């Protein structure tokens, strides 16, 4: 187990001309935590990661690694392992030389460097490929070499910049679990950047959703998904319906909420009895229906004109096949899945 460190990001700002990439970002990351920076491109997540790595100098604010101020420290003195999006392996060295490189820089004795490099390669399941050329590796193998090279010198923090974006879907899912397992084995503080919300939910202890250079919300994956604090977060995280105040009625007839509501498409049922009397009902005309294998996706036009998406698991959707467009349909959602977004306007 390596000794990992907490990270403190304190009011960091970075502007390129009039474009503000980071707008007073503050964030505390605990030692050993797996935190994901999630956001669309241009949201500032990579800029923040590069500031931690030392390749972007903040205009203002402080970066602390443990209690050490690293804001102005050279990248080579930070002891941070980085996995780049395109892996950035050294093509003129073989796999072993790539992994031994950080140890050679630290003047680790040859025999020990070899042992540690082979150990790191074994950790990422690349035993036996040590003598291969980089050009002879597949995308997934390159990814593993990049991981081995980033952990071999036992950094106290690991940064990953969309490391899986170049891999195909199946391999990406395998690597998500493997990276998380590697994190759990090593206990190393990890900051992971992605624009893929599923990846963020699957891998992280906490997710920080970024947009326009600001952190919109930082919370556990479940909270981020079920209790988004802004409309942006709600819509970025999945099929979210933002329902205007007054459009939904309570099943038991009590006064409905006066706030803007967020209801995920998959929270709906077509049977009021499953939902409970404190749930809400939304009635509209069926505009479209699509069978997506594991579920049906219905588009309802509410009477106020707004359209909502209703996702019914295929296992529970007896009757969906018979629904005809133009038909009146009522969708019910349990109270626990109805989330009021403070201050949001639908």
């Amino acid at each position, binding site marked *: 187990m390596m000794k990992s460190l907490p990270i403190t990001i304190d009011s960091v700002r970075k502007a390129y001309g009039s474009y503000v990439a980071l707008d007073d970002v503050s964030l505390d990351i605990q030692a050993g935590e797996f935190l994901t920076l999630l956001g669309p491109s241009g949201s500032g997540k990579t800029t923040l990661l590069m500031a931690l790595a030392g390749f972007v100098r903040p205009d203002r604010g402080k970066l602390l690694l443990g209690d050490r101020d690293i804001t102005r420290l050279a990248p*080579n003195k930070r002891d941070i*392992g980085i996995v780049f999006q*395109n892996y950035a392996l050294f093509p003129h060295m073989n796999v072993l030389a790539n992994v031994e490189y950080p140890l050679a820089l630290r003047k680790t004795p040859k025999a020990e460097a070899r042992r540690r490099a082979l150990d790191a390669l074994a950790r990422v399941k690349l035993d036996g490929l040590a003598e291969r050329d980089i050009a002879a590796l597949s995308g997934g193998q390159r990814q593993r070499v990049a991981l081995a090279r980033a952990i071999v010198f036992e950094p106290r923090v690991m940064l990953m910049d969309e490391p899986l974006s170049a891999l195909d879907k199946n391999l990406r899912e395998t690597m998500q679990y493997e990276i998380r397992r590697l994190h759990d084995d090593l206990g190393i503080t990890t900051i992971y950047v992605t624009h893929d919300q599923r990846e963020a939910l699957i891998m992280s202890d906490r997710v920080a959703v970024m947009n326009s250079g600001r952190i919109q919300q930082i919370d556990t994956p479940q909270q981020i998904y079920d209790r988004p604090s802004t409309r942006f977060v709600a819509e970025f995280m999945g099929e979210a319906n933002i329902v205007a105040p007054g459009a939904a009625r309570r099943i038991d007839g009590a006064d409905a909420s006066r706030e803007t509501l967020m209801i995920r498409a998959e929270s709906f049922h077509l049977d009021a009895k499953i939902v409970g009397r404190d749930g809400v009902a939304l009635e509209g005309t069926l505009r479209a229906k699509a069978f997506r294998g594991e579920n049906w996706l219905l588009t309802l036009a509410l009477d106020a004109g707004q359209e909502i998406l209703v996702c019914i698991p295929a296992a529970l959707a007896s009757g969906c096949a018979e629904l005809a467009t133009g038909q009146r349909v009522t969708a019910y959602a349990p109270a626990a899945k109805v989330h009021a977004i403070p201050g949001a306007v639908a």
Partner: protein
Amino acid sequence: MLEAYPDNRLARVLLWSFCALVLAFLMLPTLVVVPLSFSASDLLEFPPRAYSLRWYENFFGSATWMAGLRTSLILGTLTATLAVPLALLACISINRLGGRTALAIQGALLTPSIVPGILLAIGLFFVLAAQRLVGTLFGVLVGHVVLAIPVACIVLLPALARFDWNQVQAARSLGANWARAIGGIIVPQLQISLLSATLMAFLTSLDESVISIFVASGQNSTLPKLMFLSLRDQIDPTIAAISTLWTVIVLVAVLIVSFRQKS
């Protein structure tokens, strides 16, 4: 180009003949010198009536010519060793900086290869005179380095543009300082371009005469300067012998570099 007209034999024949003519036009003036250098006559005559190696003997036996050869080879080597690292660093900055500033710097760096050599030589003469460096080997070296940097940059800039800068960032994050990142990651991968740049810088210095005429003094005279002076004083086939040797040296150097590029 040829594949575009696979059936048109006439077009192919015409194209090949035209290319052959162009090559002949480019090569003949150089090749004419070769038989001249083996002439037995005191005069430059073509075709020579008799053949001998006397002008080669004359060249290798002359202390002046040998001093010129030594100066030129030393100067060429020093020029390449100074100009190529400087050009590499400049190109890295230009590559990283980007935008208008980089364009301006690139323009400034390339100026010496655009400005007429005579202007550069006159300017350099006054600058060196102020520093009391006229007539020194160092003075000529400064001039040649200034001329060789743009040549090396032209070779190195496109190579750097293709280079994946993330590798340098990766090396830095793994603990490499700037010097080690450049030496261990960039240089080995740009080996071939650096070799070409070195050859080009070396040849630039070897071939240069105007700055040498203005700045070099008697004992520091380069071979091209001595050749110009001897052409002015008396024309004899020694010049042809030197030119032939020169061509062979350059040809060998270029062949070595291109063979290394292939392997």
